[in-house]
């Protein structure tokens, strides 16, 4: 579905990404992980066409994304970014903005179909009960859901998410990712998301790409990517990787300085 070849880009002369090759097959969930400053968000911004690549190409269904018109691209790719939306809009008004890519030239009002799609998406993400509340007056978790609802209202084939679980408690983290998984299973939505939490990436992603200093260090299934050698090399911190007893996916455990000292003494 999405195919990135030899991509290099950066801001203001400073190159951030080098020679990125990444494939996002249709109907899969692909996670991008990596240390702070490794270029995860930049990669996402390049895919959503906020940044123009210096070299290489990004193809969506065989078409270069820079050859696709703005409106058409927005009907194919929807982005859930970290930005805080305008606070005085109600949830419903906010979600309805997701229908903008479907407006015809001189159309000013939403059609009944637009309202229905928005309602459906709010129901899916469980924010329908909040539809008349201002975005500024709902909790962080609910706001994230509203953002996802707006992205779904675009009826995209590919959903990009930038750290959808930041600032959320564990219940909401799992809630959001469960929702994404459900959307992936039921609606065949392809998902590419940046995640900070390695264990969530391991649990929910079909494939993971690990970025390090602007390059793809390794990509593959969670089992292939998440082993202690790779992680220690990229993150420069000591970890232990175990198997999650429930899902038997890799589970990354952290080791504090005290524990490391203790180990050293014992040895």
């Amino acid at each position: 579905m999405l195919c990135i070849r030899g991509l290099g880009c950066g801001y203001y002369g400073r190159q951030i990404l080098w020679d990125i090759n990444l494939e996002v097959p249709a109907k899969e969930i692909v996670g991008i992980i990596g240390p702070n400053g490794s270029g995860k968000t930049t990669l996402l911004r390049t895919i959503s066409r906020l940044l123009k690549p210096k070299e290489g190409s990004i193809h969506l269904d065989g078409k270069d994304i820079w050859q696709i018109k703005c409106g058409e691209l927005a009907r194919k790719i929807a982005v859930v970014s970290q930005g805080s939306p305008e606070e005085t809009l109600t949830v419903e008004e906010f979600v309805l903005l997701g229908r903008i890519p479907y407006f015809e030239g001189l159309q000013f009002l939403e059609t009944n179909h637009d309202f229905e799609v928005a309602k459906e998406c709010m129901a899916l993400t469980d924010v329908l009960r909040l539809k008349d509340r201002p975005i500024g007056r709902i909790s962080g978790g609910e706001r994230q859901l509203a953002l996802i609802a707006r992205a779904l209202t675009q009826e995209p084939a590919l959903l990009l998410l930038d750290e959808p679980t930041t600032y959320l408690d564990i219940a909401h983290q799992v809630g959001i990712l469960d929702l994404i998984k459900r959307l992936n299973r039921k609606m065949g939505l392809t998902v590419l998301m940046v995640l900070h939490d390695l264990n969530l990436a391991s649990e929910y992603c079909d494939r993971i790409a690990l970025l390090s200093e602007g390059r793809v260090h390794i990509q593959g299934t969670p089992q292939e990517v998440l082993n202690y050698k790779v992680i220690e090399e990229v993150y420069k911190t000591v970890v232990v990787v175990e198997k999650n007893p429930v899902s038997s996916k890799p589970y990354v455990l952290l080791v504090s300085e005290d524990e490391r000292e203790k180990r050293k003494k014992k040895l």
Partner: protein
Amino acid sequence: MRSRTYQWAVWLLFFIAAVITVSCFSLSVGSFFIPFKNIVAAILHRKSCAEHVILFDVRLPRILLAFAIGGSLALSGVILQGVFRNPLVEPYTLGISGGAAIGVCLNIVFHLNRWFGILSLPVCGFLGALFVAAFVYSLSVKKGVLKIQGLLLTGVMISFISSSLIMLIMAVSRAEDLHGIVFWIMGSLEEPNNALILLSLGVSIVGLILSYLFCISLNALALGEEEAMHLGVNVERSKRFLFIIASLLTGFSVSIVGIIGFVGLVIPHCMRMLVGRDHRILLGSSFLGGAVFLIICDTLARTIITPVELPVGVITGLVGGSAFVYVLTRKQIPLKGK
């Protein structure tokens, strides 16, 4: 949400009714009071009595001009506040009025109006406004991207520079020129040239229509430029066109009537409180609201101490400012919210 469309229609009808009401009121009051039934009679019979002359040669042109200018300034304000996502921006923030003022001052000082006729005043003002708008714009474009925050800062600086230049011009000009400059800067809706009035009407309405082509983009821009791009909005094109529309509306208004403050700042705020933040209704209601506001203010300006006429800018500032402060403190509304 069906009801939302009806609500918008009701608001529009309300504002249109308000425009008609205040226009009728403004037609009948003045140093010579004309009762409403006489107005109707004068319109119907088309005879050239004194009432007819006062109505059609004195009062109606002013009302039409106030409608056009009030609408233009409020529309320009709401567009710029939308593009900049900053509720404190107004049409004069970007230095466009300063440019127009310099143009007019130079015209007065060099007596260009004696050679080229009185029409050269608005022409010079408009050229000055265009020059500043183009200058501010070109300073803020980097690699084909219009840097909105840069535009705002340069605009504010250009305003300061131009007001200093105006002071300089005033300091070195002669007493009778000084009077003309001060008179122009204070702003007045007295305009003897009917063609200019019709032209400003046309410009304001064309501006309104063009701005509606971008109402959806403005709604998306409220989320931020990047989010708007994610929604498939051609952000650069929208910003550019909206800036041009707002500049032309402002430049045109300022060069014809001088500097009438406050309409472009207060009206968009009040409209946001009344009709909400959706630009599909906000643009139209701001236009009509600005028109109503300026017609009222101009009527006050010419009736309060008849036969002397107050500068209309004084009234817009006093009425608009105090009403706005009152509303803000009474209802505890956040500055940006409805």
